[in-house]
């Protein structure tokens, strides 16, 4: 922000903000600003770990309504103050970091759920609601959003909308963008707009899709209507061990091509099966690749689908059946992977090279990334699993991990090493038909690759940004857009 915090102008702006949202909902204290200076991105975590200050917002603003968001946007536009929407702050890409100061618009005060529409099977809510709270609300009425990501406990619905998040049941129920009926959005200039009420129409380009994944760069999503689903009568899992990840990939792809409808599927490569899956489950899986899938719905349909899926797994691909129990291990521990002790942690350096590709390219992408990491960074370990499967391909959740003692003690050198891994691995993925990325978003971390990814379409994206946000106040420096 260009206004000095010790100037009277700062107080003038604060007065306007408090007038807009109330005195208790504008914070300028160090502790609150500190809390919004670190998200789940490794770079600020490492920076903090090394005792360095992370960039902070000047104002933490908690709007209580769409109208209040609109007022804040008008103030921000008038004074050209950067605005960074913040949900749960659990993003791994640095998308919600206030790198240029200004206003962090913490949306959690906008946490109302307006109840389930039991005729249309939809739920309307404000976007600051924590996903688990929304899920609990729906569960109480016998429904589920079926949006069950590992970050359900912390991320807000708005956060998922902003970066096109996904959950463990995405293979059947879709990613968040598949769940949306319509949105209410406050534009950077403070106008309140609503997208069309249903997601399937032939009434021109889809504005709902324009804002989904815009990561707070095109406006603030304030309200959403989502599809919900009745809790299924049955949900069953089964797991197999395959001799190698290639065979398991073929089995998984065949299952998807069969047009059976698994609600979830995960395939872990040999290294991740041995080191990570074994640890989380507390069992010994010392060789092969672990693949788990499940079906849900009416009991007899689940049983029939499972029967066909077992034929695929056990037939030409020779999967070793770990039974229903082997599948339940995964379902019961699906979030455990992300707790400290099971998740990687500073002082290690680690990152998720989230990539998506079709079946014709996904193994090439895996090997390209693995080879480049192994060759260029011999101190790093490379592991990967394949989650979020589609009829045409799947997502690769590849990760690199440097042990703490192999990370340079100097924070600038550590950041340089970290960025170098991304540069090599992501470019290898793109060159082999991969798309960065599937559900974590771009944020600060991957912004520099967006031009490569979009190619000649980038000016279209930049034109949209300019039209909606001529002053460039919305989350500057993210998603490959200009800073300020």
């Amino acid at each position, binding site marked *: 922000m260009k206004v000095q915090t010790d100037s009277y102008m700062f107080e003038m702006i604060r007065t306007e903000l408090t007038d807009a949202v109330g005195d208790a909902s504008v*914070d300028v*204290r*160090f*502790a*609150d600003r*500190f*809390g*919004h200076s*670190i998200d*789940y991105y490794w770079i600020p*975590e490492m920076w*903090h*770990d*090394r*005792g*360095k*200050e992370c960039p902070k917002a000047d104002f*933490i603003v*908690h709007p209580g309504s769409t109208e209040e968001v609109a007022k804040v946007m008008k103030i921000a536009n008038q004074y050209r103050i950067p605005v960074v929407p913040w949900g*749960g*702050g*659990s993003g791994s890409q640095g998308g919600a970091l206030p790198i240029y100061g200004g206003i962090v618009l*913490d949306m*959690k*005060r906008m*946490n109302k759920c307006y109840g389930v529409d039991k005729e249309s099977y939809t739920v309307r809510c404000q976007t*600051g609601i*924590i996903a*688990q*709270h929304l899920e*609990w*609300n729906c*569960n*109480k009425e016998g429904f589920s959003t079926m949006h069950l990501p590992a*970050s*359900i*406990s*912390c*991320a807000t619905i708005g956060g998922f909308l902003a970066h096109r998040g996904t959950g463990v049941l995405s293979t059947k129920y879709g990613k968040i963008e598949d769940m949306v009926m319509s949105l209410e959005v406050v534009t950077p200039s403070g106008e309140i707009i609503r997208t069309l009420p249903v997601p399937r129409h032939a009434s021109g380009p889809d504005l709902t899709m324009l804002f989904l994944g815009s990561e707070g760069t095109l406006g603030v999503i304030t309200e959403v209507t989502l599809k919900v689903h009745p809790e299924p009568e049955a949900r069953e899992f089964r797991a197999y061990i395959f001799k190698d990840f290639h065979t398991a990939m073929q089995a998984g792809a065949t299952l998807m091509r069969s047009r059976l409808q698994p609600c979830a599927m995960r395939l872990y490569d040999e290294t991740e099966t041995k080191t990570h899956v074994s640890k989380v489950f507390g069992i010994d899986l010392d060789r092969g690749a672990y693949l788990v899938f499940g079906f849900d719905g009416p009991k007899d349909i689940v049983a029939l689908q499972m029967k066909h899926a077992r034929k695929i797994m056990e037939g030409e691909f020779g999967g070793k059946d770990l039974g229903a129990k082997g599948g339940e291990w995964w379902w019961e521990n699906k*979030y*455990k992977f*992300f*707790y*400290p*002790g*099971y998740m990687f*942690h*500073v002082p290690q350096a680690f990152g998720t090279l989230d990539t998506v590709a079709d079946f014709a390219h996904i193994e090439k992408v895996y090997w390209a990334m693995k080879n480049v990491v192994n060759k260029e960074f011999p101190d790093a370990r490379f592991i990967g699993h394949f989650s979020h499967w589609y009829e045409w391909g799947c997502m690769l959740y590849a990760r690199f991990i440097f042990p703490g003692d192999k990370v340079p003690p100097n924070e600038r050198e550590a950041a340089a090493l970290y960025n170098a891994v991304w540069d090599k691995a992501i470019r290898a993925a793109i060159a082999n038909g991969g798309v960065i990325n599937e559900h974590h978003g771009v944020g600060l971390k991957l912004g520099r690759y967006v031009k490569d990814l979009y190619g000649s379409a980038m000016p279209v994206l930049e034109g949209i940004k300019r039209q909606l946000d001529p002053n460039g106040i919305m989350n500057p420096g993210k998603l490959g857009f200009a800073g300020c």
Partner: protein
Amino acid sequence: MHIDKFEDAIMNCRFCFMCRHLSAIGNVRFTEVDTPRVRAAMIYGLRTGTNSFDDEDFVDALYRQDLSACCRRNCVNHYDENGLALAARADVVEAGKAPEAVKKLAARFVKSVGWKADGAGDVAWFLDETTAADKAVVSATKKLFAAAKVSPKIITGGSIGKALKVLGFLPEAKAAAEQFAAFLKAEGVKTLFVSNPAAVNALKQDYPAFGVKLPCDVKCTAALVVQYKVKFAKAAGEVYPLADDFKKNYENCGCMEKALAALKATCRPFGTNDGETYCCGEGAVVLDRLHPELVKALAEYVAARADDPKRDRIVVASAYVKNALVKYGKLKAVTIEELAAGCL
């Protein structure tokens, strides 16, 4: 420093979000600073110099915590961010940085020590300040004692150390514990009934940690319902029990559940889940005195989750929670003792 005993929590909670949804204060203030993640990160910052107890906002955040410990219960590793916050408070006090309101409150508890016992025998009932202030709970508990044919002497007269410990005044808390243990010994108490779960927790967990030995067994007054063959004339009917912070997240003696079963209560699940605390800062013991506005916000949050706020009968384990829910949440809350007495 005291915080150094909680290395796991400092190093792991600082970058972890897995209990964010359970941050009671964070959920009513909508803040990041009121979460285990940011508190732990700030405490880590004490080591690197990015944070210090000179920052009053940081210290305030430490004293705003609900201390329900539901984060620890939720965590697969059970990292004790609650314990870390209590340790940080002790460090704040030792550094002479405790807020004035905290110092005043602690001084009042130190002065309050001066117990007296009314009655005779080796069975006693410790009537803590919070419970004593609720005449309906006192009256119901007396009826239960009578029905159980137990005539305890009643001990009143100040803090037994829990509030001081929670505020970070450890030497003073330990001194109060030693004095209370000595008082019980002098009184010849062999069985001590206690109504307030915070006091039960102090006697069963804090005292051993201080190295203070009690001369008596400690029982919850709710145990009167099941352990003394009390005959109840009628069933309790439909109720919404709320598990209290201490029993749920520290040590569950199970007396509330057993009492509800003995009273043939038809129990309905309250709210939307059993992960969150609905106890309005009970774990923080004196949050209602330090931050009544937060207790009000917490109670309103709970009330918003009742099926039918005007009708539902909510059963709680402590007068603290009852008062918060009735006063601020406008809910029909009773303690387990009141529910039981109503069934006699």
